[in-house]
């Protein structure tokens, strides 16, 4: 609760006053820069033209505008990619920790290849080179590119999570006569899952933001819809502020869901 009584009766500490002042000064500087920028720009803001791109109310009821439709495509692509990212990440992490030389080599090659090349190039490569040969639709080309890219990072997070589990846990499982898959399933992964949850959240947030890049291969996602409205109306700043705000809302919602998950898992300490 915001404790108004304490605030007004002079019991706030001096240090917090200084902190607040510093914070306000920084924010003031940001505002000052923004004012300066917009004044020099002389930009003609037309925010009133934006709402109709969300929805319009006609005779047949509500019609969704391009921004909402684009958001739908973005959510669809990120949802499927997220599942694939977890599958690919998990498989790669386990491959990298097996005794098989071939599995380790494959996983390692995949990871280094993906992590050391730009996502945009990978999207172009899959869309313009691989997709015509293999007959992949643009939608799935985008999903494959995204999940491969994010999967490489997810695998490192999984690996870190698994290796962080105390050696005693493995030994205890072995002592109970469990085989490798049972050990992973009942002992290691449930504990690792809790540890990888925070870094995996930022990976999921990255996925949502990186999905904007699929607009370059003519997929009508949120960014592409924004670009098309921009190309037609030249409401550049209004559109991009709005699109950024929608992405922010999606990623904040995602983080919020994970916060709830984290709270639940922390309640049942082993």
């Amino acid at each position: 609760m915001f404790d108004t009584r304490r605030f007004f009766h002079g019991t706030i500490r001096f240090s917090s006053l200084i902190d607040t002042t510093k914070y306000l000064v920084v924010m003031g500087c940001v505002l000052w820069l923004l004012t300066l920028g917009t004044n020099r720009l002389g930009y003609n803001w037309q925010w009133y033209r934006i709402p109709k791109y969300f929805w319009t109310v006609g005779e047949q009821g509500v019609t969704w505008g391009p921004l909402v439709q684009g958001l739908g495509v973005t959510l669809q692509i990120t949802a499927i990619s997220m599942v694939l990212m977890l599958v690919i990440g998990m498989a790669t992490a386990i491959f990298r920790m097996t005794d098989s030389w071939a599995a380790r080599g494959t996983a390692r090659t995949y990871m280094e290849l993906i992590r050391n090349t730009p996502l945009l190039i990978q999207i172009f490569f899959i869309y313009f080179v691989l997709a015509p040969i293999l007959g992949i639709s643009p939608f799935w080309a985008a999903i494959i590119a995204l999940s491969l890219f994010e999967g490489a990072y997810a695998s490192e997070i999984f690996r870190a999570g698994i290796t962080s589990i105390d050696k005693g846990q493995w030994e205890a499982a072995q002592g109970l006569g469990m085989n490798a898959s049972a050990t992973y399933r009942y002992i290691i992964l449930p504990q690792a899952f809790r540890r990888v949850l925070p870094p995996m959240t930022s990976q999921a947030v990255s996925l949502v933001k990186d999905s904007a890049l699929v607009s370059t291969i003519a997929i009508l996602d949120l960014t592409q819809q924004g670009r098309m409205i921009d190309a037609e109306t030249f409401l550049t700043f209004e559109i991009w502020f709005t699109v950024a705000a929608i992405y922010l809302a999606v990623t904040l919602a995602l983080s919020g869901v994970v916060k709830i998950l984290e709270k639940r898992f922390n309640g049942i300490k082993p």
Partner: protein
Amino acid sequence: MKNHRFRTIVPFLFLLAFLVGCGQQAPQQNDSGVKSHVSQLDTILKRGVIKVGFDTFKPWAMKDKSGKYIGFEIEVAERLAKDMGVKVEFVPTKWSGIIPALLTGKFDIIIGGMSITPQRNLKVNFSLPYEYTGMSVIASKKLASGRTLASEFNNPATTIAVRLGTTAAEVTKNYLPNAKILFFDEESQTIQELLNERVHAVVASNPLPLNLAKEYPEQLYLPFKEDFTREPIAFGIKKGDHDYLNWLNNWVLVTSSTGWLKNRYEYWFYTNDWENQIQ
């Protein structure tokens, strides 16, 4: 916890209020700036350099072997600068962002084969047209062979690639509303899609379709004999600057009357004499 949240949110609210507030103030400041008779023309003359915004479209503007820009627009810009008595500075800009870049003062003028459209005219002022261009369709022989009518392309089974933000994009939406349209950022990507046989056709301004048909006679063909639009091409400048606009309009009149514009247009669009400069 709540306390912190409160403190973080308040500045954001301020920011928001500020941005909304700007909406009312900015245009007035803009107007008063122009009314005080500081024409962009004077700014350019004082600076001694005119900054020209454009994007590469063959043969409007392209890079030659040494990396220098050449093309019809480049020659027009150089002549314009010479007649103004200033140097010219080229500012290559992505086509879809070219109008915002002009409005925010990244350059003084758009000389980029830009056709006049009412929507664009709401944001910028156009000079008199100094040239006309037409839209044409280039189609894949394998996917769309034998089609010669617009109606044969106007169905949901046909996919057409266009460059985002061009009049080709608008024209395609108007003429072929039932076709599936894919929007790409670069002309090269639309051509790539066509050559990969993933789209039936590409709509673009001439002479690109003409040149493509010559370059890939095995794969591509021109379904229509004639261009299906005739669009006026003009210089784009910021709104409300009459001195500047007047100068440009009269430049177009004078240069057209001497035949120089027509001569250069024919050189770049109907001859291949310049091909050896870029290959």
